[in-house]
């Protein structure tokens, strides 16, 4: 059979930043931002638990909530995200718990990481691999992705609370964070 040369029909961005970005370091005195969404109540609950622990360690916590990303509202969202990233030292972004919300969590996380601040995207287990694929396609394959169990949003608040407690230490570890200087020195 005749051999021919065919043209590759695919295109993708070629650049990539494989860096994880800077570690979060000591939490005390840092401004920590949580990206929330409007779908996953479980993420609101987990963020509350984690924020309380971080505030107890001397951090200041702020929130930014993702809504629609199209139209005038989407344009305003993009601007407010940029402005919010200017006000924080560490970014924790979630929740990658569906397709489009993984997409936007990762896209916002890449924006945070590219701004130079310690950044972690939070995903549930079934969307972990997808989050890494999107981070790579977004030019930031080194993005830190912290994984929570799945399913999560289907649980009650009472059931989610122990998950938040159980996964806090792991979050700090992935972020390269410590609650106190003593802890960091140790």
């Amino acid at each position, binding site marked *: *059979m005749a051999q*021919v040369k*065919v043209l590759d029909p695919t295109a993708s961005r070629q650049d990539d930043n494989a860096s994880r970005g800077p570690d979060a370091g000591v939490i005390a005195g840092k401004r920590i931002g949580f990206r929330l969404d409007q779908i996953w109540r479980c993420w609101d609950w987990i963020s509350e638990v984690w924020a309380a622990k971080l505030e107890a360690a001397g951090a200041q916590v702020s929130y930014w909530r993702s809504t629609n*990303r199209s139209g005038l*509202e*989407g344009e305003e969202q993009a601007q407010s995200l940029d402005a919010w990233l200017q006000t924080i030292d560490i970014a924790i972004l979630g929740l990658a718990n569906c397709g489009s919300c993984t997409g936007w969590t990762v896209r916002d996380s890449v924006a945070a990481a590219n701004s130079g601040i310690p950044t972690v995207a939070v995903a549930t287990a079934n969307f972990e691999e997808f989050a890494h694929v999107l981070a790579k396609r977004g030019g930031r394959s080194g993005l830190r992705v912290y994984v929570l169990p799945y399913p999560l949003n289907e649980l009650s608040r009472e059931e989610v609370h122990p998950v938040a407690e159980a996964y806090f230490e792991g979050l700090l570890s992935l972020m390269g964070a410590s609650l106190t200087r003593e802890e960091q020195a140790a």
Partner: protein
Amino acid sequence: MSIHVIKPSSRKNNAAKALVSRDCGPTGCEVDWLTSIRVEAEDDITAFTDFSLEKGWGDGLPLVPPTESRVRTFLSGNDRYPDEIIARMPDSSECTVEKIVINAVMAGAPVESLELIIAAIEAIAEPDFELYGVNATTAPVFPAFVVNGPVRDALNIPYSYGCAGGVATKANAIGRAIRLIMRNVAGQVAGTTSQTTFGSPGRLASILMGEWEEKSPWAPLAERRAGVEGNAVTAFSTMGTMNVLDTTSTGADAFLEMIGKSVAYPGANCFSPSMEYSEMTIGINPICAAIIAKGLRSIEDVQEVIWKYASLPADFLQAYHREQVEAQGRIREDGRIYATPEPKDIVLFVCGGLGGLHALGLHSFGSSLSQTRPIARAVPAAIAAE
């Protein structure tokens, strides 16, 4: 909280134009304008289809090998430079004319369809189309297209019997070309870059149909939505087709009540708390359109009536669902949640066979907003040079 109304943004897809010299045109030049990587393959449809599946280029249906000769032939029937960047797709991949043509050749699309495909790609790449979410979502959503103008007949875009799928026409190949571009350039691959739970048959060849303007009592869709007269394409995202059968109604209001109530169901994206707003696209058959037009003066009146019926009582929803949409300010004073923020967000067009009886529901994917683009007139380079 108040209702989130849909307003277009001022953002545009800023595709940088190529910086190469234009000293010679697409057809008469010694320069190798085609920059894609060449890969050795067998010049046989069956073998190449298998090869494409291995490479992750294909959709499983037979593909035409995109040899340099075939790609150049396709280009020579148009007047586009292959290195022109038409759009930046999600994650900044560059969709050039060359990539469009390679995928169009693979799909078997006619040479004359290039400008339609380009306009379609431009439309879905606009930020307000929100292709990033459309690609990634667990939903079955895919971009679909309504074509206006004489190009419908020139390209055999169906707008009568079976227009939403199944008609034997090369429009299927055009739709498939767009889908291959979605796969190979824009990044909508199930299980990899798309988390779609079920997918849709529309992810193979899309829905590419025309509006039956000659049977419509109203101005063409592109003219009404974007002020574009003549050849134009309107892209909208859809979860698929939903049929609305009505064998009993007798007047405009009754038909519209059936349509409005039918498209409003709790699991539709337009009622999801994940996004505060949504459009709703509906195809109305010519028979029904004529009856409706006798009872209602303008298309705005028709949109208003459908909008009124396309709503649900808030207490019809389960508590968690209701609480979330309530927090978004979407429960109105009448205790109802409306499918779209305003009547203008009900996108109507006329299509379908003369058997009537049915309407075509095309539910949107929330924040993805329909986009209309004019279709340029192709002037083949050989003619332009004369």
